[in-house]
């Protein structure tokens, strides 16, 4: 094992060295460094925010570094664990599911922002996700309010209009999928069968999670979880989707027009709009409902927030920048909503013109008003600190379920694995 450990240490060391060279140059330039993961989405919104801030602050420069989301998370974790702060950015984007893991594992590494920024201006659930011991640590960014994004032309060919997609169940979705394939030859969904994100969507739509409010594992005996997993097993066993593996494969399937849609968070808008030739051919419907008392058509997938590192070399400037643009500029939120589909959580911004207008790209549907009203219906859940572990356990059982595995047995396995991993 010494070799492996050395390997990891070398890796961390090399990352630190490389990054500290970066940090040195940035320190000289007085540059604010930001880590995020999607150049079409959060990277683009950050650049837009920086351009606006620079208009009043001519000295302000920003360095937006975007790399794969998993790499951002793992690099941040490795670097915080190493104990050296050289090379960490000033601002980092963290997905809401993981916020508490970082805050609790690395106390003192993140700057409390409650004093500098008026958190009451944001959606309360976002602030709560990033609060620990009464301190809030983030400037909330986007919501992951979910929708069923579909090709209006394919569904029209199969005889379905917008009205037919309201208030449906997952089993009805399977019927629609069969009809779409029979009439148009296109599969209905692009599905990464190893991704358990859809289970998270279904669970939250019914107001439940892998864990209870006080952090206990809530899997075996959780009727809503069983209903969700059962509904998804029926989808996996149907022939209505194209199985994909990995992000590029998954997005490529609907971006190329091969499949008719996907069920995911509002942030996928940036990827969908990256193909302007499909303008007017997309629509958004509410997600199907699981067959469970109290389940809704509204849920959340992902969503993230900006955090300032306590060790940031340009800390004061970074906080002021976040405060002036991200925590106040209503006009900015209108622009990133239209351009990137970034569904901000600054409450005031919801009254702006972009949130009220209908979107020509989405066949003239009032999608942003719809998302706003769905957002209000999302049942609140406490994600806890072990979502990654639970996700891995669920993902391990999905291929088994697809091949007709027993639902109760799979739940038992997931439950045992999560309990073991989180003890």
């Amino acid at each position, binding site marked *: *094992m010494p070799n492996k450990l050395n390997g990891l240490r070398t890796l961390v060391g090399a990352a630190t060295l490389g990054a500290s060279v970066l940090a040195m140059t940035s320190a000289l330039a007085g540059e604010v460094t930001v880590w995020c993961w999607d150049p079409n989405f959060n990277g683009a919104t950050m650049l837009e925010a920086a351009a606006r801030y620079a208009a009043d602050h001519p000295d302000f420069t920003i360095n937006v570094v975007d790399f794969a989301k998993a790499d951002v998370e793992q690099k941040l974790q490795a670097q915080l664990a190493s104990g050296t702060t050289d090379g960490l950015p000033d601002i980092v984007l963290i997905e809401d599911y993981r916020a508490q893991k970082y805050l609790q594992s690395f106390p003192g590494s993140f700057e409390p922002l409650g004093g500098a920024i008026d958190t009451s201006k944001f959606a309360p659930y976002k602030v709560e996700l990033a609060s620990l011991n009464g301190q809030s640590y983030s400037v909330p960014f986007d919501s992951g309010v979910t929708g069923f994004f579909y090709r209006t032309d394919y569904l029209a060919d199969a005889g379905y209009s917008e009205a037919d997609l309201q208030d449906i169940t997952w089993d009805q979705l399977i019927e629609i999928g069969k009809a779409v394939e029979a009439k148009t030859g296109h599969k209905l969904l692009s599905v990464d069968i*190893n991704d358990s994100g859809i289970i998270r969507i279904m669970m939250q739509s019914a107001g439940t999670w892998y864990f209870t409010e006080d952090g206990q594992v809530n899997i075996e005996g959780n009727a809503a979880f069983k209903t969700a997993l059962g509904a998804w097993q029926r989808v996996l066993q149907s022939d209505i989707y194209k199985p*994909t*593996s990995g992000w590029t494969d998954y997005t490529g399937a609907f971006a190329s027009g091969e499949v008719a849609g996907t069920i995911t968070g509002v942030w996928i808008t940036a990827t969908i709009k990256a193909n302007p030739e499909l303008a007017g051919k997309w629509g958004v419907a509410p997600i199907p409902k699981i067959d469970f008392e109290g389940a809704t058509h509204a849920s959340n997938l992902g969503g993230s927030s900006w955090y300032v590192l306590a060790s940031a070399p340009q800390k004061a400037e970074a906080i002021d920048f976040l405060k002036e643009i991200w925590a106040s500029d209503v006009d900015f939120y209108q622009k990133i909503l239209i351009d990137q589909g970034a569904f901000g959580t600054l409450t005031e911004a919801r009254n702006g013109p972009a949130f009220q207008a209908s979107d020509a790209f989405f066949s003239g549907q009032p999608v942003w008003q719809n998302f706003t009203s769905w957002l209000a219906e999302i049942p609140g859940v406490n994600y806890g600190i072990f979502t990654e*572990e639970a996700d891995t356990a669920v993902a391990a059982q999905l291929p088994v379920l697809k091949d007709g595995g027993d639902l109760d047995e799979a739940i038992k396995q997931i439950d045992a694995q999560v309990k073991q991993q989180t003890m």
Partner: protein
Amino acid sequence: MLCGGERFDLARTGLARTERLNGWMFIMPALVLLGVFMIYPILWSLWMSFQVGRGMNLSFGGFANILRLTQDPVFQRALSNTFIFLIVQVPIMLVLALIFATMLNDSKLWGRSLFRTAIFLPCVTSLVAYSVLFRSLFLADGFVNDFLLGLHLISEPIPWLADPFWAKIVIIMAITWRWTGYNMIFYLAAMQNIDRSIYESAKIDGVPTWARFWYLTVPMLKPVILFTSVISTIGTLQLFDEVNNIPPNAGGPSDATLTLSLYIYNLSFRFMPSFGYAATVSYVIVILVGILSYFQFMVVRDKRR
């Protein structure tokens, strides 16, 4: 006389001491570096393997981590995957390497150095670079599926990276491609040291080709075969880059390609960090490498007698 002799001894010890001191001085830089970057981390990781807790909040937990190992289904999955890779891949690779080496050792073979370079070349490529290439080759609509579909060998695409069984096959193919040439070079070098006259006399005595290979080449390569099987075993137990980079979800699908090293990485950098437990799992690899290497030495030693 006695006095003189004593002085001589003293002088000699004085000289010896200076020499010894000089010697230590010369190796001191290497020793210090070894101590700081090798011995200290090893001891520290041993200490860490008894720590429990999340993130930076560590505390001494005694044997709690070892108890956790015995109850951890993911660890058992990672362990069995690692052994499947070991048991299936290492023999295939070594046999292939031996066959290639024998073929390329034939001085009458046309384009010998070209083939030798071609087979060795994969092992100078970066692990991550070739992993990414393999991923794109084996995507659902990647080159391999297109090729097989084009030849009408299969009627629908094989879910290479989405199916637990096929994903293991892809990993095995990838590491075999990457490392066969490396092992072949060892065999080739060893074969060039075998005296040609042995083969000549065997030929004169009418020993057939297969028997010359089996009863002459293989026994004489035994030390090299032992060496390659030990380093391949260690390499496979530490398998990380390929399983982290080839499947679109590292270790997936369904943990089918999760290895011990990747699990250590997940425990430290993906999950709620438990560095102590990760160190415990890493010591499992140390112990396994020790045991397996010992057995391999034993097997060869017995046969030599």
